[in-house]
């Protein structure tokens, strides 16, 4: 059981993260705590890029075009830095989110992975699985409420009252 916690709100976008009962941090905060003090420059660079992208999205909105078209609404937060010369043994950092609309973003968890494909990493796979369940749950509630996912006010109300 859990709830969504609002952690960042601007006139362009609202960003929430799931927080489960008995836990002191939401999923995004866990990601921040786990990754904000990497000593390896490559991982620090990945982390800084993710934070900077979220900051920029808070100013512009979470445009669909920012994300790679990977199918569905579960997306990896894009990096917008040059990553062509990374050390694959050190790994890359991924943060996953559920993009509901330009104005509504659910940030999930993330991790460092050395897997060639993100789908081959069990930790990332679990994070994606959790977000997929959340997406299905939200869609059900939105349908029951006879509203639309693009209705920002109605969706905001649902997100803030839904039980996970």
């Amino acid at each position: 059981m859990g709830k969504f916690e609002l952690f960042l709100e601007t006139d362009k976008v609202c960003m929430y993260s799931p927080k489960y009962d008995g836990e002191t941090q939401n999923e995004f905060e866990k990601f921040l705590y786990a990754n904000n003090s990497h000593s390896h420059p490559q991982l620090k660079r990945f982390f800084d890029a993710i934070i900077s992208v979220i900051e920029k999205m808070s100013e512009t909105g979470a445009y669909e075009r920012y994300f790679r078209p990977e199918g569905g609404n579960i997306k990896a937060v894009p990096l917008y830095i040059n990553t062509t010369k990374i050390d694959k043994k050190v790994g890359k950092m991924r943060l996953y989110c559920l993009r509901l609309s330009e104005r509504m973003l659910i940030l999930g968890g993330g991790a460092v992975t050395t897997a060639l494909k993100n789908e081959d990493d069990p930790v990332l796979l679990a994070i994606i699985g959790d977000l997929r369940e959340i997406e299905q749950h939200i869609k059900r509630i939105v349908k029951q409420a006879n509203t639309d996912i693009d209705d920002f006010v109605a969706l905001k109300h649902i997100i803030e009252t839904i039980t996970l």
Partner: protein
Amino acid sequence: MLMKKNLLFEQCLANVAQEVREEVRLNMDIANRIHDLLKAKKMTQRQLAALMGKRESEISRWLTGAHGYTTSTLAKIAAVLGEPIVQVKREPEMNYVFVPINNFISPTEKFDMFYTSKANGSSSISYKN
């Protein structure tokens, strides 16, 4: 306008390397600029790709930040779209007026003064009284 913020996120943001933040913001601004130009010119990514002799997937990688732009790429996109993508701030040009030296009258000549330079590097101006 920021209406709610998370303290931990703010702390992380304060520790972001400035060069990474600038790279991200620049790349996202460029992606937005190209998107806006394509929209204004009613062009698709596929059409842009065709005009540039690239695959559509490559254009998509640029616009989603998975692939960096070179100045050569930016120049090519600007040429194809007929609009600048990035603009570099330039100082306004200085206009100099060159005066022939034989027409120059120094203030000391004009006002009947004497300019003396000494060996120790100091100098003095004397007036006729």
